[in-house]
């Protein structure tokens, strides 16, 4: 029986997992490093609160790729209700006040959870890459000894 080329299997599965990890990590780390700190800075504003809160809301109104505003479990209902409220407030031209911060943080928290999901998924995929790499090295050495 012809032996399957395990080296190629480990190499390609490791590469695929690595590429997937990079794809998943990119939006998550962009959100963690750039978007979320920017929103938090706007939410900590003490002057021009309404304009800064609105700007923060407009940033988080665009959903994270892993945290779309489409499927809400019971925990997510507060996010949905907050969005309905802020959409209406901004559409009708009303000002946002410091008391609104906690509700904006509810929406931001969904984004943070989505980033966390992306980060853990990319870590899992990286560990798959690491395992595949170790198997590849082991297989390469074994086939070298056999030759």
């Amino acid at each position: 029986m012809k032996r399957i080329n395990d080296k190629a299997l480990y190499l390609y599965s490791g590469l695929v997992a690595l590429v997937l990890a990079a794809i998943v990590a990119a939006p998550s780390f962009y959100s963690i490093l750039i978007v979320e700190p920017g929103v938090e800075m706007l939410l900590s504003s003490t002057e021009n609160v309404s304009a800064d809160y609105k700007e923060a809301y407009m940033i988080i109104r665009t959903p994270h790729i892993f945290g779309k505003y489409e499927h809400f479990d019971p925990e997510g209902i507060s996010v949905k209700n907050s969005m309905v409220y802020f959409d209406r407030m901004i559409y009708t031209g009303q000002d946002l006040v410091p008391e609104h911060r906690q509700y904006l943080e509810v929406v931001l928290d969904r984004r943070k959870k989505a980033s966390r999901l992306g980060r853990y998924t990319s870590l899992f995929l990286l560990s798959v890459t690491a395992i595949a790499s170790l198997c590849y090295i082991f297989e390469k050495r074994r086939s070298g000894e056999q030759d």
Partner: protein
Amino acid sequence: MIKKYAVSVCALLICAASCAKIPEKVQSPSLKIDIETRDGAEVYSVRFSGGIANENSSTALGDVKGSVVIRDPGSKKDVFSIPYRIDMILPFSMGIIDAEKICSKTEVEPLIGLFNINAEEMARNKGSEGIFVEEDRISLAVDSYLKHDINTLLQGKINEKNK
């Protein structure tokens, strides 16, 4: 072959992404018939109220026009229709239909029959009580609407206010 398949899949994905969910049913529908006298003649005012939900997460529906149709579930015939227009329904929000139609007695009679309204009592009270319309007696038609991306819409409102 693969290229053709890829193009079709991409076209389908783009189409699916750009399609907005259109409201299909009226929530909490109710109607009320009032008898009024206008220019010396007796007219019937049918007032309908209900809500239609925008279930889209990022698409607001603007200038929604259509009609609510009351139908006889037995004969499946449309007995009455009332047009409506809603200025804007934001995502996850409910647009309120509050429509009124002035009509003659002959136009209203099928409604009176369908909901078993006591005509004498209605004449005495100059109107009926509020009537809840069951789901099988109503259908919603959406004739036209405009799709607005919520981010663009809200950013426009912010810019408008900052001017």
